[in-house]
């Protein structure tokens, strides 16, 4: 049964790509959030196929269970999209970018994989305090944005 993983991966990948495209085609934002949830769930299935079950569970709990539910509750306030969407522009750009990036992956993926990846990230992760600082800065910006917006929005935070 060597091809079961591959067949399952192809099915999940198709669902993920179709869901990512459907995010922009649906006029109801609630449906767009549902399709984004499907993308998150699909990535969790990919992690399971790779043998990373803990990360898959965390992805399901945090993104599918937490953030997507939060987004749905918030976005449910709006019924219809009010901005324009140009499908004629979508397909050419999606095709060009995807094919270009996949071609790039074919050329660079093999060289980056393997032990070199650990070496690259091993040297990069010497700077992990800076990564933590960026994360702290982001959360600071988040709290700042809520404080600033609280002056304008009549909400009960």
């Amino acid at each position, binding site marked *: 049964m060597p091809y079961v993983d591959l067949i399952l991966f192809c099915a999940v990948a198709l669902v993920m790509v179709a869901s990512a495209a459907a995010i922009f085609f649906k006029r109801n*934002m609630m449906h767009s959030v549902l399709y984004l949830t499907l993308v998150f769930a699909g990535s969790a299935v990919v992690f399971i196929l790779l043998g990373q079950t803990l990360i898959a569970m965390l992805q399901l709990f*945090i993104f599918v269970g937490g953030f997507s539910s939060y987004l749905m509750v918030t976005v449910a306030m709006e019924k219809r999209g009010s901005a324009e969407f140009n499908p004629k522009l979508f397909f050419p*750009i999606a095709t060009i970018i995807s094919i270009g990036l996949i071609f790039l992956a074919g050329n660079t993926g*093999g060289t980056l994989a393997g032990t070199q*990846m*650990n070496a690259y990230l091993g040297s990069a992760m010497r700077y992990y305090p800076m990564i933590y600082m960026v994360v702290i800065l982001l959360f600071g910006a*988040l709290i700042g944005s809520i404080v600033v917006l609280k002056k304008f929005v009549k*909400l009960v935070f």
Partner: protein
Amino acid sequence: MLELYYLTGLAFALVGIAMAGMTSNRHFIAMMLGIESIFAASTVLLISFFDASKTANPQAFIMLIAIWAVAAAEIMVMIVLYVYMKSEGINFDVSKLTRMKW
């Protein structure tokens, strides 16, 4: 066993679709959801490369948490901006967001 090429192809296809959607769609929420799908693609790419390296590396988990933290902060900022725009009656078309200019 999945080849790295398939996984990077999936991640890049997701990024391409999200970028195309963001350039062709003017709705604020749809654009932010596109950014979220790019974050999902980045997690797939990260785990794919570490799976291809064949060695257990805890640094991958640190980077993954960093990506999740940025995605979470982006979701929260999106919700705050959404509630603000909704309550102030601002149009969600980003080409008309003149009220949010400094």
